[in-house]
Every structure is written in structure tokens, then in C-alpha cells.
């Protein structure tokens, strides 16, 4: 196995071969389930109001990966989504644009054409999303296709079957190869935490993905329940924080699926600030994978500025 970057000796040792990788991952400290859930719930009760809330809403909007991953997607729908990404609230040009638009590989070209010159990234899911059940060749071809079409970010899924049966080397190899196939594109590694069962597994999968070269670790595909929960995101934020303290590199986290309200989004931002640090309050290091969240953020933004409650009649239907 080849380490993707120059790592400090402890981590370089970990990726030497499969058995040392296993030893490293199983040597990670266990997650205190009660503790992490209590801490997540405690941070969730922070009250963010007025100017701070408005700031949080704008930050959250700029962190959204506006997503459509449905069998029924059409070029028209993707173009509509791209328009919304550029100008989320057409009546208010001061609303920041979102971070990226996330689509299936065959829609990447449509999205990329719409977003030329806007600074908004095009993210594409790849590697037999959402199940990840295919051969490595097909997964790599899927990735290359997405990048050729113009994706600047690739969201890959890990092989949960292999991970859960303990074939860590295989998962590592897959991520490393997909990372290579990505070229300059950013790689987000979807752990699908809803299928990993325990927090210990989430921690191991996070480290595995970081070791293999993932630029982001992402909670879920959005197709499995439970998706992004606060405690799981806590564990992943701890992983990127520890990664930075050991290597000096900044890696990102992306919770996706199930975050629908502004209140939820702000809870995640509080967690980012408290667990990882204020450095991560940046669209380059923290993203929300969401579709309905954006409308709620826009409605809340209007509520803050207008002084009365807004309604879904005043935002786009999508």
C-alpha cells in the first residue's frame, strides 16, 4: 500500500500493510456513546439569536451542497437547481451563493455548463452510488466519467460490506485509487454511517478515509435512515481535528441527509465550532448536503429581516 501524502511516522506505519492498518484502526480509542450523545444534545441547546443567527444563516447558505439525486432528475430540473444555486433568493441579491451543486454523473455536464464562471462547484456522486456494489473498474470508470464531464468534486461511497467484514485494506485501496482517478477534483468519502452501526466503526471509517486521501468525509448518501445525526458528526469532526493536530492538514466534513431546518443547521455549526474549531466554519471545510434545507434557511432569513414569519409561497418549489 502506498501512502497518498507524506505522513508522520505513526500514520505512515499504519498504512504499510493491511495488518498494520487493522492494528491502527482497532487501536483507536473507543467512542463513549453516552458521552458523545450527551455532549451533542448539550451543544444543541445553545441559543443563537438576532445578528448571530443571521450570520449563521448566511454562513449555512454558503455551505450548502444543493443536491438532487433522484431517478426522476431531468436536465431541466438540474438547470433550475443551478439557477437557484447562483441566486438562492432572487429578490435579495445579498444572499450568498451556495457552495456546490451535487448531481448524478450524467447530469454533471448540464450543471457545469450552467455554472461556468460562477465559482460554484459541481459535485458528482460516483462509484455505483448509493450502494457501492460494483467492481473497482466500474467505480473508477464512473469517477473518471464524472471528472471528464466537468465535476470538480466527487462524492464516492465506500464498500460498507467490505468495511464491516474487516477488509480494511480493500476499502483503503479503493479510496486511494478513486482519489487518483479524481485528479484535481476534490474527493468526498461517504461513510454511510447509518449502516456502520457503532460510533467506533464511524471513527475507524473516518480515519480510514483520511488515511486513504479523502479531502472530505461525508456522513451519508441520504438514501439510508438514520442519515446525518449530530453525535455521528461529532465523531467525524473529532477525527478531522485530530488529523490536523497530527499532520497539520485540514480536511473537511459534510453531513448529508435529514438536515431540513435552520435550527438543525445551526446546531451543526455550533458543533463545528466547538468540536473541530472556528477554522472549520468555512465552505472549504464544512458542507451541508441538502435539498429542502435551503428553502428553510431562506424563509428564516426573511423572517429575521422582515420581522414577520415567511412562508413556502415565497420561495421556489423544487
Amino acid at each position, binding site marked *: 500500500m502506498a501512502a497518498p501524502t507524506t505522513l508522520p511516522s505513526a500514520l505512515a506505519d499504519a498504512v504499510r500493510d493491511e495488518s498494520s492498518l487493522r492494528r491502527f484502526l482497532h487501536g483507536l480509542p473507543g467512542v463513549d456513546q453516552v458521552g458523545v450523545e450527551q455532549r451533542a444534545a448539550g451543544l444543541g441547546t445553545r441559543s443563537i439569536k438576532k445578528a448571530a443567527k443571521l450570520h449563521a444563516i448566511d454562513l449555512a447558505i454558503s455551505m450548502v451542497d444543493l443536491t438532487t439525486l433522484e431517478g426522476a432528475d431531468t436536465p431541466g430540473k438540474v438547470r433550475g437547481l443551478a439557477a437557484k444555486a447562483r441566486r438562492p433568493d432572487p429578490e435579495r441579491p445579498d444572499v450568498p451563493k451556495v457552495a456546490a451543486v451535487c448531481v448524478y454523473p450524467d447530469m454533471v455536464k448540464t450543471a457545469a455548463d450552467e455554472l461556468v464562471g460562477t465559482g460554484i462547484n459541481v459535485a458528482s456522486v460516483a462509484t455505483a452510488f448509493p450502494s457501492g456494489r460494483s467492481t473497482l473498474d466500474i467505480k473508477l470508470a464512473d469517477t473518471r466519467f464524472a471528472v471528464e464531464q466537468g465535476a470538480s468534486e466527487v462524492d464516492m461511497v465506500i464498500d460498507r460490506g467490505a468495511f464491516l467484514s474487516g477488509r480494511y485494506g480493500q476499502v483503503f485501496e479503493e479510496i486511494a485509487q478513486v482519489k487518483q482517478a479524481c485528479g484535481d477534483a476534490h474527493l468526498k468519502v461517504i461513510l454511510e454511517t447509518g449502516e456502520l452501526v457503532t460510533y467506533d466503526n464511524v471513527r475507524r471509517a473516518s480515519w480510514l478515509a483520511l488515511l486513504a486521501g479523502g479531502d472530505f468525509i461525508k456522513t451519508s448518501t441520504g438514501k439510508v435512515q438514520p442519515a446525518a445525526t449530530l453525535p455521528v458528526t461529532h465523531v467525524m469532526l473529532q477525527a478531522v481535528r485530530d488529523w490536523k493536530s497530527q499532520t497539520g492538514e485540514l480536511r473537511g466534513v459534510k453531513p448529508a441527509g435529514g438536515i431540513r431546518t435552520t435550527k438543525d443547521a445551526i446546531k451543526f455549526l455550533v458543533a463545528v465550532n466547538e468540536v473541530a474549531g472556528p477554522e472549520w466554519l468555512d465552505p472549504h471545510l464544512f458542507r451541508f448536503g441538502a435539498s429542502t434545507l435551503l428553502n428553510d434557511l431562506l424563509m428564516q432569513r*426573511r423572517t429575521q429581516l422582515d*420581522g*414577520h*414569519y*415567511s*412562508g*413556502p*409561497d*415565497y420561495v421556489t418549489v423544487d
Partner: protein
Amino acid sequence: MSDRVTVAKTYKLYIGGKFPRSESGRSYPVTDSKGAFLANAAQGSRKDARDAVAAARKAFPGWSGATAYNRGQVLYRVAEVLEGRREQFATEVAASEGVALKKAQSLVDTAIDRWVWYAGWTDKIAAVLGSSNPVAGPYFSFSTPEPTGVVAVLAPQQSSLLGLVSVIAPVIASGNTAVVITSQDRPLPAITLSEVLATSDVPGGVVNIITGRTAEIAPWLASHADVNALDLTGAPESIRADLQRSAAGTVKRVLRNKASEDFSVTPDLSRIRAYLETKTVWHPMGV
């Protein structure tokens, strides 16, 4: 053995088919007409109103999409459950309004009859208020009444059950959903009505009942962009004009009936008509 100690009640709100505490955590004592303590009621806040509007909006497609016949059956079922609680309502109305039990009983009976009267209208509204229109062209043109949407109802302050029923029933009969701010000082019959609604077939969110200070919550409902109509019957005189002004900001339908409305007389269709829109369809024919 000593006398039994009565169990004092602290009631909650009725939002989305559930009975949550007020988000604010507040409650206030409810007294009878002579000032004796009856129970504690939840003192709703603007955020409770916001949650209630969200619940009402969520319930709207299902309730307005149900057949008129089905809505009628659901409302008849409510009348049955009301009938079963007749004694409780009479006691509460007597205590709240300071009337004799016999008078209270007659008020409750009228209220139940009023509910049945509106239940009967559900599947007749379209026939009476709809029309096929004579047009000069090869079209069949017809108009049908459609519910307005989410209606915020400020319930009458004096008539605690008959008045309440007379303002809620016409809203939901035609397929609207309602957010009701009860009488501030006489909320007990409304709370019992919420228990009736929760145990009959009315889907959660169709009627949401908030107890508390009308003048505190009403402005938030009047300006709320997701509320489509506002019934000012129970609005304090001092804020009526302000409520109308802010309701105009999102072009709400506003029903400006006087607080002194007499609910004992059999009504006409005006309250049903107030929360209806007209949809007209031009259908090509003869081609």
C-alpha cells in the same frame, strides 16, 4: 376520613393533533366569573402560533383534498363526541360565563346543533356557491368554490363554546385548516373541544387550538406570510386596525365581524363564503 382533594388541572395546547406544552413554558390561572380558580391553561407564545401554522399547512392538502362527503362524516362524528361530553361542557360553560346550569345546557345544545348544521353544508357548498357560466364561445365554463387555505381564527371572548363552534365549524367545513386563539379568560370549553377533536376522526393539524393572550399572539398571525385568512371576531378593539393593516401586507382575507355578534341565531352562509376562493375552468367543447 377527610374530604377528597380535587385534582387541579394544568392544560396544554393542541397543535398538529398533539398536546404540547407551550414553547414558552408559561401557563396562567383560569378563573370562573366570580374569580374562583378553575384550572391552569397554557399561555401560548408566537412560536406556538408559528408551529400551529406549520401544522395547519401540513394538514391542508389532505383535508382540502378529502371528498366533501367524507369531511361531512368526520364533522358528524365530532358532533357525536360533543354530545357524549354534554355534561362536562355545560359545567364548564356555566362556570366560565357565569350563567345558570340550565342556560348553559341550552347553550351547549345549540352549539352541538350548530356543528351539525355546518356538517350538513360540507357537500352542498359546491352546488350552492358553484355555477356553470353562460359564455359566448365554444366552451363549457364552470366555477367551483375552493378553500382559501390556513385560517387564523381569533375566537369570541364572551361566548366560550357556542361562539367558538360558530367560528371554527365554517372554516373547516369547506376544507380550510384553522389556527384558533381561544377566548383569553374563558378557554376551558375550547380545551375540552380540543380533546373532542383529538378523539374523533379529525386529522391532526386541521384544527389547532392555542390558549393565551389574544393581543400577544394575534399580530404574529396577522403578519404571518403562510396564513391565508384572518377572522377578527375575538380581536380586542384596540388592535383591530393594526391587525388589518398587517394582514394587508400579505393580502389575507380578513373577516371583520363585530365582537358583539349574536351567535344564538341560526347563521347564514356568510362565514363559509368568507373562506372560499372561486376557481373557474373554461373547457373547450364541440370540436
